[in-house]
């Protein structure tokens, strides 16, 4: 047995709570020099809290960090993580598309650059050397907008490595944290990215690879650590651990959630059918939703499930697709929000602050907007009546607010969402589309929103709910479609709709990853 080198990075007992909820509980993580270490876990498992503690964004309640055997005081001052040899590449990559490759490469490299005299020629030569070492065919003077998505990801990763490689941190190669860099890349490009990562680890850099995608983690990492509910479930050598064991530790043996709905029995009325729908990510999908049915859509990041509500309501234009309603069929490439409203389709978007409510405007103005010119005269608005309508909706949907004239910004997230729900449900829609309806909402308001959705389906309305929360689907969905890279990969109905079954379906082996 040879002597173990000191770990590049060692986290011990990291704990962080937000308002009494433990996001991270005594988590340990060890990353060796030159290792690619996977970090796996569902949404809310604590991965992002851990990453944000490493980047200095959160201060931990307890726990220690050692880098190359040296203790590092936590929290790391924000923006100083590079001087400890830590660099981060987030999903959005942090590149400015309008600027050149070179400008992006040196942006923020304040330790090395003279801010009053940038020698562009020398910098370009240095960039070419760096790209040659990493086998990247990039020209420093090309604009980033001309790069392919995988080239952008490579540039971001090489830039991060350049910042930490042996320059600032007592001569060692540093740690790159890659936070979901792959979900929008096709599989061929993911392999290209993996090649870049391997070349970097050959020089001694360590990489923490955060991903939802087990197949990618199995393929690229040396070891992987699984987090669940804020705790480390275990660390595995990926080459020798069966896939099923990793899946089981991600998903866990969850307690069953109370289902608020019974089995769905098809009624005499014909279902609403969506055929050959394609958008930015989803490709040629077809499905139906019956009257009084709650259909859940889910999948991993980038799988496209969250695009569907916007495509069906005309909020974004579909590339192809038709929506068959009992009365008529509609071409989704020509759907607009106002024609969707006329068809009885209501959209409750995820971005409450920008697309759900105008926060500067009053509750009344927000609630009554879709009624103007429809059930209310366009030329004489009776403000007393508008306030009355609003007060009735506030009462019916249990919106806690002082008065209808108050600006919407003064309400809590839960009350805002109930108001948005009231705004649309007062129209009596036949199809309600929701995207992440309980995002950032407390438990009480969440329950009230579920109650409203269940009432809605009992009255015969069709509901489509896109969400990343499997528990929510177990609570309220009759049926769930699981998406993967733009296609429907699995369908679960009735008793099959459980958190763990959905999670298993999400993490199920992809055919696209299987060796040819």
């Amino acid at each position, binding site marked *: 047995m040879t002597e173990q080198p000191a770990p590049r990075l060692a986290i011990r007992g990291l704990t962080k709570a937000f308002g009494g909820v433990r996001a991270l509980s005594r988590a340990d993580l060890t990353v060796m020099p030159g290792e690619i270490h996977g970090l796996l876990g569902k949404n809310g498992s604590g991965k992002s809290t851990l990453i944000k503690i490493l980047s200095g964004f959160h201060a931990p309640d307890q726990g220690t960090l050692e880098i190359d055997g040296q203790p590092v005081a936590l929290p790391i001052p924000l923006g100083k993580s590079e001087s400890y040899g830590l660099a981060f590449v987030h999903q959005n990559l942090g590149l400015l598309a309008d600027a050149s490759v070179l400008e992006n490469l040196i942006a923020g490299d304040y330790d090395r650059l003279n801010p009053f005299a940038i020698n562009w020629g020398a910098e370009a030569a240095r960039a070419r050397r760096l790209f040659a070492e990493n086998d990247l065919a990039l020209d420093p003077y090309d604009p980033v907008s001309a790069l392919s998505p995988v080239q952008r990801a490579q540039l971001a990763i090489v830039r991060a490595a350049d910042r930490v490689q042996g320059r600032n941190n007592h001569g060692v190669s540093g740690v790159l944290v890659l936070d979901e860099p792959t979900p929008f890349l096709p599989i061929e490009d993911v392999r290209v990215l993996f090649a870049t990562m391997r070349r970097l680890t050959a020089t001694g850099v360590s990489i923490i690879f955060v991903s939802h995608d087990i197949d990618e983690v199995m393929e690229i990492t040396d070891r992987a650590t699984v987090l669940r509910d804020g705790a480390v479930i275990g660390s595995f050598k990926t080459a020798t651990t069966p896939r099923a064991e990793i899946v089981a530790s991600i998903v866990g043996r969850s307690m069953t959630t109370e289902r608020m709905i019974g089995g769905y029995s098809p009624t005499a009325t014909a279902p609403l059918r969506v055929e050959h729908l394609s958008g930015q990510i989803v490709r040629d999908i077809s499905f139906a939703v019956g009257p009084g049915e709650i259909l859940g859509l889910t999948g991993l990041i980038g799988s496209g499930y969250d695009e569907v509500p916007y495509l069906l309501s005309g*909020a974004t234009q579909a590339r192809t697709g038709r929506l068959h309603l009992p009365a008529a069929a509609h071409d989704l490439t020509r759907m607009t929000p*106002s024609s969707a409203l006329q068809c009885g389709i209501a959209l409750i978007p995820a971005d409450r602050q*920008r*697309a759900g409510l*105008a926060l500067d405007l009053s509750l009344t103005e927000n609630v*009554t*907007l879709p009624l103007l010119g429809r059930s209310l005269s366009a030329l*004489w*608005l009776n*403000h007393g009546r508008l306030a009355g309508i609003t007060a009735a909706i506030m009462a019916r949907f249990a919106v806690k607010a002082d008065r209808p004239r108050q600006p919407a910004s003064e309400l809590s997230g839960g009350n805002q969402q109930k108001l948005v729900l009231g705004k649309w449900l007062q129209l009596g829609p036949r199809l309600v589309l929701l995207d992440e309806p309980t995002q950032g909402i407390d438990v009480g308001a969440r329950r009230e929103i579920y109650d409203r959705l269940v009432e809605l389906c009992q009255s015969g309305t069709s509901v489509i709910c896109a969400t990343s929360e499997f528990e929510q689907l177990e609570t309220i969905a009759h049926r769930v479609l699981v998406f993967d890279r733009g296609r429907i990969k699995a369908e679960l109905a009735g008793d099959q709709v459980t958190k763990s079954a959905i999670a298993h379906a999400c993490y199920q082996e992809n055919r696209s990853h299987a060796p040819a």
Partner: protein
Amino acid sequence: MRPPNLAFQVERFGLVIVWVAVILLFGALRPDTFLTWANFSTIFGSEAVLVIVTLGLVVPLTAGDFDLSIAQVLTFVSMLTAILSAKMGVPLWIIIPTVLAAGALVGAINGALTLYFRVHSLIVTLGVGTFLHGITLWISDSQTIGGVARALMHWSIIVRFLGIPIAFYYAIGLAAMMWYVLSYTAFGQQLLFTGRGREVGRLSGIAVGRVRLLSFVASGVMGAIAGLIYTGTTGSANPSSGTTLLLPAFAAAFLGATCINPGRFNPWGSVVAVYFLVTGINGLSVLGFRTFVQDLFYGGALVVAVMVSQLISGRKERNL
């Protein structure tokens, strides 16, 4: 419903209170020249044009757009009116619809360029306005043109009611109409959502592009109305008349957004703001200050107005 609280009422009527205080101050200093009905009827009548230009700005501002061309629409329409009337002898019943249509056309061009090419309205209307000024100088040969039909002057300043020229009542009438449209019609709400929550409005079925286009057309027409009344008030058209109106109108629109309906561009607030500003300037000139006080006052008011409105809203980041 909770009772209206005092702080809110002070905020709503703060500018009115300051205006009254300014009148009292100058009145105490110069009771013979400042505090006379003749002085005030002149102020009310002659600044009706500025009120209408300010009201014209309020429409696109509510929808989240700037119209910097409005003052040049005024100048162009004024010049067109003078040429058609004095040089070509065209009767007023043809001139009026023609110049209103010209204003609407400029607004439509502003809107079309802003919306189709997705350029910021600030840039589009700056360019269109300057272009229009070029046309004005061209068709007038850079000369002031006088001798417009007497009927136009008659129905602008000669007819008086309670001693105030009728132009003032046109401005008040337009403010009332706009207040109705903004507060009591679906279109008013659509304008508001287009400016303050464009994505919310779009997803609620508002054709935000059409609303923005209409707001440019409305400000073009208001600019044309102001141009007609300007020509009637002075009896002539001056190729640089509008240039000095743009900043005062913006100052008044932003200052007006701090009162009556604080936090929103609103017609009655704009009327109060215009008359507050001109009262201050008139008072200072009665005291013997020279013309530089205009720029000090208007420029200062614009900066103070946006500072106050940002303080009211807690210094939030804004796009406008």
